[in-house]
Each structure stands twice: as C-alpha cells, then as structure tokens.
C-alpha cells in the first residue's frame, strides 16, 4: 500500500543508473548469452529477439522503437516523449487508457520509457496471459488514434512532468544546462522531456507525422524474455505483428559535434540549498574500445566507498555530500563522461574542483596499482551478475546493445573490461579527461526570498471545514 518513495539523493540516482548500464545476462552455465538468444526478422522488417528463462512462470514482452530525442528537430523537442504518452490513448479498437486496464486485469505490469536513442514499451505478465500484450502492442504499432482532445490534456500532463522533474529541481536543471553547453550541434544537447517552450508549440500534426515516420516494423524490434518455448512464441508473434505493412526505415543519421577545443564554463544561479558542481567530458561510445576503459575509470573514481573521489572528497576532506562519476557506454552517438558532486554546507565548489583535477591528473600520470585495478574489475563483474536477478533487465540490456552495436556485443562486456590495462587507463585519461575537452557547470545557490529556511515555523491555519 505504501508507494515506493524515492529518497535517493540526486547523485545516488546516478549510481544506480551507472550500475544498470553494466547489466548483462550471464547464464548459470558458462554459455555465452548469444547462444541462448534466438533472432528472427519478419518479412516486414520487424526484428524479434527471444530469450528463454524458465526460472519463474513469467514473461516480459518489450517493444523497442529506434526513436528518441536524438530524432527530434531543435524546435520540436520533447516530441518522442509526448508520443510515448499518447501511445496509451487508444486505437481504432480500444479506448483511451483501456490498454492499461486490460493489462492490470490480467495481473500484469506495464510501462514505457523514452530516452535519447529509444522509446520502449513493456508488459510483464504470467506466461499464460502474455498473448494480451502481443495483441495490444501489435495494435498500437499500426492503429494509434491521435485525437486532438486527448492531446490537449496529455500535453498538460507532460508539462507537469517537466515541472516536477526539472523546473523545481536545481540540480536536474543544472544538468540540463550542462548538456546544452557541452553539445552545440548534436541532439543530445536538448533534454529528453523537451524545452517547455517547445512543448507549448507541439501539435497533433507533429505527432502524426512522427508516428508515421518512426513507428514502423523496420524501425522497431521486440525482446521477449522469460518462461516460454521459442517454437511456440515465434508463430504467435508472426501472427500478431506479421500483417503490419513494411515501410522504409527512417534516416537515422544525425550530426555529431566536432571535437571540442577548449574548456567551456557555465554558472546557474537560482534558489537552492547547496552548491553543485558537474563536469562533462566528450567521449566516444561503445563502438570505440576506449569506452570500456572509461567504464573502468568511472569505477576507479566513484565505485564504492573505497573509490578515489569518494575517499578524498567525502571521507577524507569532507568537502562533498555525494560524488559520482558516470560514463555513457551505451549511447548511440558519442556521449559524455560526467563527474558531479554536491558541496557540503559551508564548502566551496572550487575546492572540490581542485581535488577532482588532482585525481584526473593522477590518472593521467601514475599507472593504477594492480590490486586497485582488479578491485574495479571485480566490482563491474559482480554488478553484471547481480543485475541478472531481474528478468526485465536481462531483456533491457540486450535491447540497449541492439540499438548501438547489435545485441551480440552483449557478450563482449566482461572480456573487454578484463582486458583493460593500467597503460590503457593513462592513455585514455590523457586523451579524453583533459581540461580542453570538458564543460563545467556550477550551481550557485541564491538565498530564498522569504529569507527563512523551512525548519523555521511555517504558517498553519485552522480550517474551515468544507
């Protein structure tokens, strides 16, 4: 009855995300994952990935569209996410929100998510009910009704979502500004949820065109994981999705920023309690082997309480409340390597920056000791196994790889991490984690207008009973 409350501080959220990114399914036996996945491409271009897992009588059914905020235009930001919301507004045969009801009536859970590179929908249900999900997903892949009246309400919901996530959250707001500065051309510069100004301009016509362009079998793929037999599931998928007409796959090329040639700095001034510092370094993604080295570097810097930045900033010097390093291994276009810290009361973000600079210099200058390197590799491997505990994430990690380099590269993760050497770390740090390649954002808190912190008495009045 109690909702899960998110008490995790901002940086804490980054941690869990970083961990998720390393998730891959390793079967109990030492079989490679790729040997356990079946792939089939239907004649209309829809790719299907099937992963049997009979641990519990449950199936997770996921539809991934290769469309996210990177596919938007600069004055129509947020379109992908708004469309995700509208995907629950019904088709020619089912009414608004009816899909949600049907899943719930079958004891299932469902959700959807939008990111820079993808939009995903999933249902997780008992194995004997999963047909409901197949039918509903196939239906909305081709028959979505985009009604003006639903749009007018839903766009308000999305604006509320933006207020909740960003407008009233000083750190999230600062991160948004950071990305908008670190990139100048490529679409990662705008937020997934879109700028508020753009949200006010979007129309149903924009959505219809976007849906028509990107929601096609050749621009989507399915990942199904759980308790089913492949020879039974595949024909059912063919029946449900096979009749959706084939269309040309949309153009996925996007502009990439030219190399950065000097440090950029921004300051965000707004009401907040504590200063906040965030740095973003332009880095390659998983297509470049250096990316695995950056995974290891993120672990050296902030993986666990014995990590370098935690030890120095939180434990030793007591300058930061939290600190986190995070690498975007699985972004479709080259992404960012972040270091972020929330400053302790009375502290100064320049002191934190100095320590971060010293630690980055140390990475460039001194080879990592073997035990420390082994420690980080152990952490990454353990996390990799630990995350398989969830069926949902087993499917998700396949999908994340599929979007960037193809799902088969999932099995490269552990070997590639194991291969990273102390020399690689120095070389990669010298190449990417340098001043000229970074953007630094500082949140400077302004005092609250009322001049009183919240712990002061607040006003209460006796109610007139309604």
């Amino acid at each position, binding site marked *: *009855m109690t*909702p*899960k409350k998110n008490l995790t*501080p901002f940086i804490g959220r980054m941690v869990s*995300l*970083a961990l998720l990114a390393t998730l891959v399914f390793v079967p*109990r036996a030492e079989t490679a994952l790729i040997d356990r996945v079946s792939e089939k491409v239907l004649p209309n271009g829809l790719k299907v990935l099937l992963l049997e897992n009979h641990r*519990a009588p*449950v199936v997770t059914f996921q539809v991934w569209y290769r469309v996210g905020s990177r596919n938007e235009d600069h004055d129509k930001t947020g379109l992908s*996410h708004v469309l995700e919301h509208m995907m629950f507004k019904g088709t020619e045969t089912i009414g608004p*929100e009816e899909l949600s*009801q049907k899943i719930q*009536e*079958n*004891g*299932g*859970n469902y959700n959807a998510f939008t*990111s820079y590179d993808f939009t995903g929908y999933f249902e*997780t249900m*008992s194995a*004997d009910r999963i047909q409901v999900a197949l039918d509903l997903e196939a239906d909305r892949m081709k028959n979505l009704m985009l009604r003006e009246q639903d749009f*007018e309400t839903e766009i308000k*919901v999305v604006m*509320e*979502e933006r*207020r*909740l996530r*960003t*407008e*009233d959250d*000083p750190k*999230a707001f600062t991160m948004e500004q950071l990305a908008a500065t670190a990139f100048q051309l490529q679409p990662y510069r705008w937020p997934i*949820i879109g700028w508020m100004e753009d949200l006010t301009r979007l129309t149903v016509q924009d959505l219809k065109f976007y849906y028509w362009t990107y929601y096609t079998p050749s621009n989507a793929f399915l990942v199904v994981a*759980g308790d089913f037999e492949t020879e039974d599931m595949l024909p059912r998928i063919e029946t449900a999705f096979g009749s959706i007409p084939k269309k040309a796959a949309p153009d996925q090329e996007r502009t990439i920023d030219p190399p950065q040639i000097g440090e950029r700095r921004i300051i965000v001034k707004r*009401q907040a*309690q*504590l200063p906040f510092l965030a740095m973003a370094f332009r880095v390659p993604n998983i297509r470049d082997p250096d990316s695995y080295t950056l995974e290891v570097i993120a672990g050296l810097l902030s*993986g666990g*309480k*014995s990590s370098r930045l935690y030890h120095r900033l939180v434990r030793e010097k007591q300058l930061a*409340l939290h600190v986190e390093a*995070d690498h*975007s291994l699985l972004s479709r276009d080259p992404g*960012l390597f972040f270091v972020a810290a929330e400053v*302790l*009361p009375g502290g100064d973000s320049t002191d934190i920056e100095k320590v971060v600079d010293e630690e980055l210099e140390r990475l460039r200058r001194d080879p990592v000791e073997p035990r420390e390197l082994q420690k980080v590799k*152990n*952490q990454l491997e*353990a*996390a990799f196994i*630990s995350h398989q*505990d969830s069926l949902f994430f087993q499917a998700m990690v396949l999908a*994340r790889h599929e979007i960037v380099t193809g799902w088969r590269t999932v099995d490269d993760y552990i070997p590639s991490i194991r291969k990273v050497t102390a020399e690689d770390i120095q070389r990669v740090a010298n190449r990417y984690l340098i001043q000229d390649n970074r953007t630094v954002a500082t949140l400077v808190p302004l005092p*609250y207008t009322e001049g009183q912190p*919240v*712990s002061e008495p607040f*006003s*209460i*009045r006796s*109610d007139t009973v309604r």
Partner: protein
Amino acid sequence: MGPKKRWTLVIRLMTFVAALLLFVDHQVLPAMPEVDRIVLPNQLVVLVSEDHSLPLVTMRLLVDAGSRRDPRGKEGLAHIAAEGLLLGTSTRSVTVFDETLDFMGASLHASAGRDTAALELRTLEKDLRKGFDLFLEVLTQPVFPEKEIRRQVEKSLAAIQSQEERPGKIASKAFTKVLFLGNPYGHPVEGTRESLPHITRDMVVRFHQNFYHPNNAILAIVGDVTVERVKTDLVPRLSQWSPDQIPEQEFIPRFTQWPMTVTIDRNVSQANIILGHMGIDRANPDYYPLTVMNHIFGGGGFGSRLMEKIRVKRGLAYSVVSFFDPGKYPGAFQVILQTKNSSAQEAISILRAELRTIQKDPVSPKELERAKKYLIGSFPFRLDTQSKLAQFLTQVEYHGLGLDYPEKYASTLNAVTRKDVLRVAQTYLHPKDAILVVVADLKEAGLDESAQVLHFNRPTM
C-alpha cells in the same frame, strides 16, 4: 547525467516492477518460493530460501531498532546507529573495511526505518564465507569511532539541508510533523537540525547494546546457498550472538484529528500537495479491504479514480497517488500530488470531492473485480528478485503474517465485498478532519491570504 541522461528515461508510472501471475478469480495460489524457518537457541529467526539460478546470495537482517526508539530530543539516533555499523569494527578500520568489501564486488548497506533497521549483504556465492564474516563483524563488533560518528552526524545535517530544496520533501516532513503530534512516528528517521547535534558516540553505543540482539532480529538468506550449508556453516556462528532483554517503551499513538492547513511559500512552479490523516497499524484486520479500497481510490495508478479525474480527464498532474503506510503502530493515510500553482485549488477540490464520493456510494462491481485481479495477480511482483524476496520474508515474519501469507492474501482479498469497501471508506477516511499541506508559490496558488496564522512550534491544540 542527470535524471535525464542515460536511460533514466522518463518513466510513465512511478513504479515499475517485473512480473506476474494472474490467477483466475477464485482459485489463486500465488507461488511462494520454498522457505525454511529456523529458530536458533538465542531466538534469532532465520528464513532461508534457495535459488540457484545465479551465483549470488542476499542476506537481510531486520532489527527492531527503528527511529520510533529514538529518545526524545535525540531524533536520528537509530539512523546513526544503523549507519554507524559500517564505520569500523574491532579488527578493521572503516577504510580497510570498505576496500575489502569493494574488492569482492559485494555490497553491504545499513539503514533505519520507522520501525526497524536493516542490514543487507549482497555477494557472489564464491565470496559468501568472507561476506558473512564481514556481516557478522559489523553486527556484533562495531566500534563506532568517535570521529566517524561525528562525520556521520555532519553528513546527516547536510543531507537534511539538501532535502530542503525539494518541495515534495518539505511537504512530507511538514505533514508528518503535524499529523503525529510528537508520537514516536512523528519525526524524520534521519533526525532534525535541532536533534542531531546532541547525538554522541556514547548514545550510539548504548542504543546498539540495547537493541541489537538476536531475540530482537530476523534474518533472511536468499539465493545460491543450501539450507544444509546455512545449518552447518552459518547457524553455529549466528548462535554465538548473545540475546538480552530489550527495553520496551510505551507507544502512545497520538494524532492531530482535526482539520488543519499548512501552507509553505516557496518559489516553485508546482504546488506540492498532501492531504491526509491518521491511518491504521499493520495488524488491523481491515488492512485487506482497505488495500482494495485504496487501490480503487488512488493507489492503483492508471485506472484509479484520482488518476482518472486529475490526470487523464484534466491534465492537472503527472502523478497522483494515495496510500496507507501501516506500521507496527498506526501510520498515516496520504494523498500526494503536484500541480502547477494556479491549479492547486482545483486539484484540492477534486480530492475532497472524490473522498466524499467513495464514502457515499459503493464502488462498482467492475472496479472491485479489477482491483482484486490486479492485486492478487501482481502479488508475485513482490518476490521476483532476491532482494525483494528477502525484504518480503523479513516483513512477513516481523508482522507475524505466517509463511502461508501469499495464499491467505489471495483468499482474504477475494472475500472482500463492495459493502466492505464502503464500510472501510466510511470508517478510515476522514476528509472532514484532514490535514492539508501545500508547498507552493502561495500567491500564484491563491493561498496567500491565510486568515489565522499560528506558529507550529507550539501547537495550542
């Protein structure tokens, strides 16, 4: 990367879990994994559930040492005592300890809640012995170094300050403070700016001596370990943990049971609204019909009445949710939503109207049916990872629900009628005596002309 980067995606519902079994109406036997319950001579209850699909083990210890045990004026002590477990032992400094744990790629977390504190270890099976050593060591030989305790207090104070820029957090703290009228549930687990500076190492040591005993604890072990191995390897060492008398204090559940409005003016774009009042304890037999009622009213995500009226029909909020949070003692009932300042009053009127409606008219047969199907069918969501199962098992034991709880849950829910739902709505919802908290730009929200302003510090009622 901020909440937006990576795949933080914008998730549509606040919760997502993994999967479920649907059971057709009256049959229903949610699968509970096999569990062995062992009671040691020192009264520690050990629950073991084997799952060999991954080379991974999760151990979760629940100790009845939550923040309700905080002495008055020392709020936050239980929290510091729990976190303090990980700050060094008689044989390892905190630095050595952290490095040892990290080298195994294991995780060990300690935290406190309202009722209980928890210590959770997650380790690869190959490191189980070492992990268990660390687990026992922090539990039975923590030294709570003076310097580390002081730091922990400083960190808590900073975290409290940081929370004050989150309007939702401000609202919930104000609600809790006003509702519980100084009863032991009435302060934040992490303490307050006023209380934390008074906490000393001696108090932490005493708190640990008072409450961290096997006869006051429950241990769940889930994953790639056999019951045999638990019995031969772990139980002998756990049995050496010595029991002791647990000091019990009286818990007087006092509540504000009259209408009250708290407004807090902040420069924010959304009004953060909480409407709520006294709730129930977990042992209340009406827990089950209330679960159904709340699901229909505002707990069930899409399809709940509040979601339908406030989000789907009017676009007033991204999230609106209602819940009871029953503990060992009565908790709260709350409705939480955020809406742009200018819509605050409209949203509040709808909440109040919906409360009146669910107290006046029986829910429809269809609503009842749908709620039951989802609640029963999705039950196994709560058990589908090691961590969730460990948490579930310790809670079932803590509240004395019995290991056949999943089956009972289904049959009890199935027996709930529309009449029951109406009765519990009338009995346990108190819209006329609700507390309303609004953190907003009060001017924009049209709430700034508040008539009588009382100071909360010394409530006169």
